[in-house]
């Protein structure tokens, strides 16, 4: 059961990391135009 001491914090830290990335993306306006971004990938230039 000692493995839990490592695994639980590890899972929480990973989840927290995801949350931090999400907040960063939100701050950088990454979700303002989901449709446009989906289409821009098709443009050559």
């Amino acid at each position, binding site marked *: *059961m000692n493995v*839990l001491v490592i695994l*639980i914090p590890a*899972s*929480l830290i990973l*989840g*927290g990391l*995801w*949350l931090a990335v*999400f*907040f960063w993306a*939100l701050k950088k306006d990454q*979700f*303002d*135009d*989901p*449709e*446009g971004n989906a*289409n*821009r990938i*098709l*443009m050559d*230039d």
Partner: protein
Amino acid sequence: MTAVTAARTLPAAVAHDAGPGGAAADIYISLPTIHCAGCIRNIERHLNARDDVASARVNLSLKRVAITGSHAVPADLVTSLQRLGYEAHLLDRDALGSARDGLGRDLLIRMGVAGFAMMNVMLLSVAVWSGATDATRDLFHMISAAIAVPAVGFAAQPFFRAAWGAVTAGRMNMELPISVAILLATGQSLYESLNGGAHAYFDAALSLTFFLLIGRYLDHRSRLAARSAARELTALEVQTARRVTGSHTDEVAVSALSVGDRVAIASGMRVPVDGRLMSPEALTDRSFLTGESDARRAEAGEILQAGEIVLGAPVEIAATAVGEDTTLRRVAALVEQAENSRSAYTALADRAARIYAPLVHLLALVAFLGWIAVDGDPRHALNVAIAVLIITCPCALGLAVPAVVTAAIGRLYRMGMLVKSGTALERIAEVDTVIFDKTGTLSEPGRFADLAGFSGTEKSILSALAGASHHPVSRAVAAALPDQPAAVVTDIREEPGQGMSGTSGGQSVRFGAGRWLGADFTGPGLRIGDAPARPLPVEQRLRDGAETALRGLRQQGLDIWIVSGDARSAVEEIADRLGLAKRVSAMSAEGKQALMARLAADGRKVLMIGDGLNDTAALASAHASVAPASALDASRNAADIVMLRDNLAALPGVISCARQVVRLSRQNLWIASLYNLVAVPVAILGFATPLAAAIAMSASSISVLLNALRIRSAL
């Protein structure tokens, strides 16, 4: 129409070019028809290639382009985009408000927190479900509590606020049972965790919050797009006026005018306040106020109303009513009254909540009292009662209607329809009568002349005569002859209400009403010398898609009326062409509203479609309403749906979509109830576990969401 467009776009141009030296100003242009990567590239390339644009970026989700560092006149950019083949409308930056979507960002943050907490708690719960016991289980429950309690406290706030609002107002909504379920589940789980209990519902409370926040956000997003485009600027009331004092004129704010002031109004401008005409005569376009398609000729001493557009020579008026007393403002007051009466409509979801919430709470109470009576253990009884609350799937019920409405709003947005009100589709589905305004809705403002059958000489004479007059028929004829060199016609005179006469090549030439020319037709005609008069085919132009739309609406079994402020002959002409039997002409704004009230009293549900100021009160008081994008600001504000494309053909699609929305929403409510029918007895008998709750909740939510997505294939 040109004058109207110019008058409406002018204030925006002034506002944006205000900075001396062309200080960089952001311009937003709405592009309702863009849909793909090709559109983005075309528009961005075109705009960025211009010298007067620093950078342009298209937002495909909001269907608009943001232009920074531009010294160009915004109206020029709009025309250049239109020439490129895209429908474009200028958006006023101030009216749009801040570009930041504060509420949407707030919902996203809460969604992120709820999602993070849910995933972690779910992982810990899986361990408990797999058979963790004693200290391990308690540890997992405590960690879950440490994550879940603050997460719920933060993420579920929008629901708590809405529920509290409903409680204080004495109403019932979906948020109330949702909030109760979230709060009780969290509270009970916290108590169980602290006391070493076996069952904790943290995961249920969090997934409930997470799923419902997704629904909330989608709903918000689709409506945000509609709302921001609907805020597009139209300045009906000119903000400045030219006041004449003695021999000089000065530019003053309209609000600074007082009764008795003399105001000069140039050709093509709107009349700023109600006033008595001081010039000998005036020709004005009242189509936006009254629906009349012909210009009105006023004599000195008559009253001009605020909002009329001066067509002929510049005029001077003496103000008789300013500010709140003008006719324009009185109509706005009428709209407010009508809107208040409509807010009484209860949405389908709220009606379902009215039945569902008391029923669920009663069931939970019965389970609680029942178990106390059976084994006398209040803790066990409370656990069962809470399991009942959670397992009755408020999640599916809370998603049932919003998921369908969101899918439909997104679908309609792609068709060029902005749905401004959440309950608009439900109300449109109930409609049995459709009332169309004429001018600006079924027919285009102004007229259209077909001069293919006329010779070069005739055309050049027409060009000279028509070019000398501001009458709508003359303007239509002149517009049909853009490159025609005018013949030399001397001695041109305008006979008010009759036509134009002159002399060309020694013959008298006349262009005007058939009777005035001595012919037996009633429409306009041309007569050269003693030759018989020739009729001119000048007619009202139907709006694109009007015929298709009416055919579709008839097939849907709707009763269609045409109700217009225009003169009888003009209404008859359009009604005959469209085969409409029910026609009412010369209707005032109050008359239209009274007609709405009478039809409503007869039990009819009316869909009103109109664009003018005279329609505004009717739009607001009808059961549901639609306005075209070219409508006045006031009309678009009053309407539930704004059609962004200048084409009526999509109208029957809106109605079938609305009917589909109601059908699917009902189905969803039944699906959710079906789950309850199975799960509730299990919960009441005390067999429900957190695992069962998690399965029931996810399964019902997913079935409801999948059913909602069927709306895409149904259109």
